[in-house]
């Protein structure tokens, strides 16, 4: 693999990673739940794209293709379908006003991006394909956390958790040339699927018991 190909691959990966970041920021200010789910699907598609590019440029490493395929099937199709079904069953499709308003949220996430870059600075000297995506992975982590605490609907918190997972997978693909061993990737994949299913069950039960998905109502236990 010559250097111009590697250059192109690096650029593509950087571009897709930047796309993931932009989508994350859009999710921070998005109010419609169904649109948030679609944004998540798009973000996962970009992640699968990054994995596919890494696989292609590393002499067709087969199991990274597996990772790309699993991400595609699981996070781009299956999970959004599951979440869509849940939203329709619950019949709540809009987020209520977040704790921090749109503009302040966006500014804070801009700050997180800077923080992510600062943390990843010492590691940019590593010679890996797409090594500057570590900063984006850390930013996805931080903004995912923020999204979890800023929003009050349970489904948005689930989506925030999933974007944090996306960030971790981005770091995994970006940092390790061949990805992690397949057994680990499979394990993580199935874990995420099962986690979302369990969360779905819980969300449904919360809705039934509280007649609302507003998690700020879950505040009885104190002390």
């Amino acid at each position: 693999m010559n250097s111009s190909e590697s250059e192109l691959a690096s650029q593509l990966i950087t571009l897709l990673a930047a796309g993931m970041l932009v989508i994350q920021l859009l999710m921070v200010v998005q109010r419609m739940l169904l649109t948030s789910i679609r944004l998540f699907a798009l973000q996962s598609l970009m992640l699968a794209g990054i994995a596919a590019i890494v696989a292609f440029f590393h002499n067709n490493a087969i199991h990274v293709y597996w990772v790309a395929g699993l991400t595609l099937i699981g996070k781009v199709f299956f999970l959004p379908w599951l979440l869509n079904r849940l939203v329709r069953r619950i019949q709540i499709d809009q987020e209520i006003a977040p704790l921090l308003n749109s503009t302040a949220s966006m500014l804070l996430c801009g700050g997180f991006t800077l923080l992510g870059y600062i943390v990843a600075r010492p590691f940019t000297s590593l010679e890996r394909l797409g090594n500057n995506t570590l900063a984006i992975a850390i930013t996805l982590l931080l903004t995912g956390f923020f999204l979890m605490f800023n929003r009050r609907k349970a489904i948005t918190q689930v989506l925030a958790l999933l974007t944090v997972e996306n960030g971790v997978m981005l770091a995994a693909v970006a940092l390790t040339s061949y990805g992690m061993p397949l057994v680990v990737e499979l394990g993580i994949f199935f874990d995420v699927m099962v986690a979302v299913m369990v969360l779905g069950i819980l969300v449904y039960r919360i809705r039934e018991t509280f007649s609302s998905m507003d998690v700020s109502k879950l505040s009885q236990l104190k002390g």
Partner: protein
Amino acid sequence: MMFSVLAIMLQTALLLALAPLISGCIKNWKAKLQNRRGPPVWQPYFDLAKFLRKDMVISEHASWIFRAVPYVLFISTLLAGLMVPMVSVSAPLSLFGGALAFVGLLALGRFFLALGGLDAASAFGGMGSSREMTIAAVTEPALMLAIFTVAIAADKSTNLSQMLIAAQGPTWKLLNPAHVLAFAALFIVLLAETGRIPIDNPATHLELTMIHEAMILEYSGRYLALVEWSASVKQLVLMALLANIFFPIGIATDSSAASLGLSLGWFMAKLLALAGAVVLVETTNAKLRLFRVPDLLSAAFILATLALLSTFLFQ
């Protein structure tokens, strides 16, 4: 300050001639997407001719500002247009500060237009002016940051021609994320500055929903022609900026007639493609409620900031 009289005249002619065509195309294509026939693409020319012929009715409360606004707006927009490289890499006019002067000229025009809206002492005019200023307060920083992002790559020069020359060089990367983010930010700024959906509906007749239209409600006759023409020229100028800075394909680097002709062709193609994008965005979105517009614009601001950061951190 380099200028060649011929270049200035040619570019002015191009600006004045092309601007109504772009507006007409956008209106026509929007109608086609909405399953209507729509006005022909030459309609804005006929409208301008009609306005120039008509009498003017001016409110008795208006002062000299009201009469000065159309001229100031027209001239400042043309000057700003002359600074943007359209067909050739070197723009005819290159004032001190480059991009800063560009933004400043557009801001001057907008300032006077807002004054004109207030001057006639009508309630709608004042409302339009205040709304316009609110939007401008957020779009101008985004515009500047996005332009600076591109300027960084051009040896940190804010001269627009310089940026284009640098873009021709080998270090320009098609897939540079900084450029993608800056383009996204500038696109939103374009929508805001030209008063398109989702920020403002140019075809509305409900005064309470107007922003740009409300400021020019009192104008008639040739003043209205000048104001409308300036709005189209501003739209053309911003689109040219967007198209040429980010996709400098086919732009002429020398001044031979053949390359200029080819460059004109490419330029038209890029403008029409951009116009198509604007039409798509207008047709698929609904107008935002006014208090939600700052959210969208701050998103553009954040995108522009990220773009600027990316140039430093994405090495």
